[in-house]
């Protein structure tokens, strides 16, 4: 248990410095809804589901957002060029404590006309500023660590000795076997890739590392690289903790619809609720310029990293473990 005064003070400094960073760069702060009809579609996420009832008794299926992404992209489609939001997001089926809490604070920002490389630079500058604001000599070591950028393909060459450019399912499977990594017969390319990453690469990500260019089966909502093999996606690891996930955003509404449908299918197979496709988002997507970057950053995790904490419970005032 940390003194609550410290937590409050640190968080206020963080939020203030985040806002002044974006204000000084011409971003607009926007408010986005938390209660929506279509929350995130990602197959591995479980939104909190509820029912919205009007006074006349008409009911609507609803859920709490897992990220403000859809609303943010609609605003881009309405012509806003640079926007950010700080909001609460919700994910069910999470561990209480450690790196997770079912309700957490997220910073998301988008810029039209710039790609994920620009976004990585901006992320680094943002974190440098927030670090500077939280002045605590105890954390000098974290402050002075330089940021590195590492392509996923290079990490696989270094630690696993396989080339992701032409690694098929069998090669990934053999690599798992030769490193003694547990697999199952129905593992997909994506599963095998991630098993290797979790076991052999993630533990080696010390310092501040941007890992970028994910294989296309892990492209998520990112645009593909020019050779079509990777998604222009990055994650930032600080001291081994995953802090944010950014993309050059996919702006093709047909490709987006296809990915939504695939995800709906995966949700169905996993026995999860299939949320309706957000048609308003798809209709506004063509108005978003290419390239446009977006990044989602966990504020609580940044708070942990910058103050040397290892448990999310130590940077939030009312962690789930004390509420439930």
């Amino acid at each position, binding site marked *: *248990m*940390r*003194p*609550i*005064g410290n937590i409050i003070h640190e968080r206020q400094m963080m939020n203030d410095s985040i806002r002044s960073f974006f204000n000084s760069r011409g971003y607009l702060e926007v408010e986005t809804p938390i209660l929506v009809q279509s929350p995130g579609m*990602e*197959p*591995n*996420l479980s939104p909190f589901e509820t029912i919205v009832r009007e006074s006349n008794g008409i009911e609507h299926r609803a859920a709490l957002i897992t990220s403000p992404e859809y609303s943010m992209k609609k605003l881009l489609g309405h012509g806003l060029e640079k926007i950010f939001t700080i909001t609460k997001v919700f*994910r069910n*089926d*999470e*561990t209480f404590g*450690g*790196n*997770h809490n079912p309700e957490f604070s997220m910073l998301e920002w988008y810029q039209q006309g710039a790609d994920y490389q620009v976004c990585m630079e901006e992320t680094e500058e943002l974190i440098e500023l927030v670090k500077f604001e939280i002045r605590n000599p105890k954390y000098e070591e974290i402050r002075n660590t330089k940021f590195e950028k590492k392509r996923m393909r290079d990490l696989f060459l270094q630690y696993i000795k396989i080339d992701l450019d032409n690694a098929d399912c069998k090669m990934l499977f053999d690599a798992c076997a030769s490193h003694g*990594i*547990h697999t*199952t017969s129905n*593992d*997909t390319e*994506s*599963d095998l*890739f*991630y*098993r290797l990453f*979790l*076991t052999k690469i993630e533990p080696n990500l010390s310092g501040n590392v941007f890992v970028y260019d*994910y294989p296309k*089966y*892990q*492209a*998520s909502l990112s645009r593909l690289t020019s050779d079509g093999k990777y998604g222009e*996606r990055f*994650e930032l690891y600080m001291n081994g903790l995953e802090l944010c*996930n950014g993309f050059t955003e996919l702006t093709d509404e047909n490709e987006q619809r296809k990915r939504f449908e695939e995800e709906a299918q995966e949700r169905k197979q*996993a026995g999860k609720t299939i949320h309706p496709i957000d048609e308003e988002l798809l209709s506004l997507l063509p108005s978003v310029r290419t390239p446009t970057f977006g990044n989602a950053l966990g504020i609580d995790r940044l708070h942990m990293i910058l103050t040397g904490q290892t*448990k999310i*419970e130590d940077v939030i005032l009312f962690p789930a473990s004390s509420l439930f």
Partner: protein
Amino acid sequence: MSSPNDIKKGTVVNINGELWLVTYFQRVSPGKGSSFVRTKMKNIKTGKVQETNFKSAESLTFEDVQYKKMQYLYNDGNLYTFMDNTTYEQVSIAKADMEDSIPYLKEGLEANVVMHEGQALSVTLPQKVEYFVVYTEPAVKGDTASGNVLKEAELDNGLKVRVPSFITQGDHVLINTDTGEYTERVN
């Protein structure tokens, strides 16, 4: 068959006939793709510790283990002995099999001993355990105004923890045995 999502500390997983005791677990949800459960497991036979990651969609065989309520009696070098209060049966567990729990032990503490085919594998402690404070400095005047100032306290089993400044010698406190942290004062 069971889901990796149901894994807890103390779960025993049967993988190809070998039994593994889970000593650590954490769910991992990547930005894309399946979610995973990251575990550290100890082979019950060989003692080998291994990190294994399970996809949430996998099905696993959990070995049927019993959790027996027993009282901690004493420690004799490398062995920690517990007793069943109704049958007076005693079992001993090796230090290496219960490393995380050792700082929280105190005589008479009730814990769940993980039993498998008559053999004691490990022990899981209650999440919160009550101790009394044998020593702590009195609060410095003025410190209490700001609320949560922490200071060191020594507990009846020798464990040292950080407690709020309003705690005085002789107070009873609850300590979280997962994190080693003070949770509340018992009145």
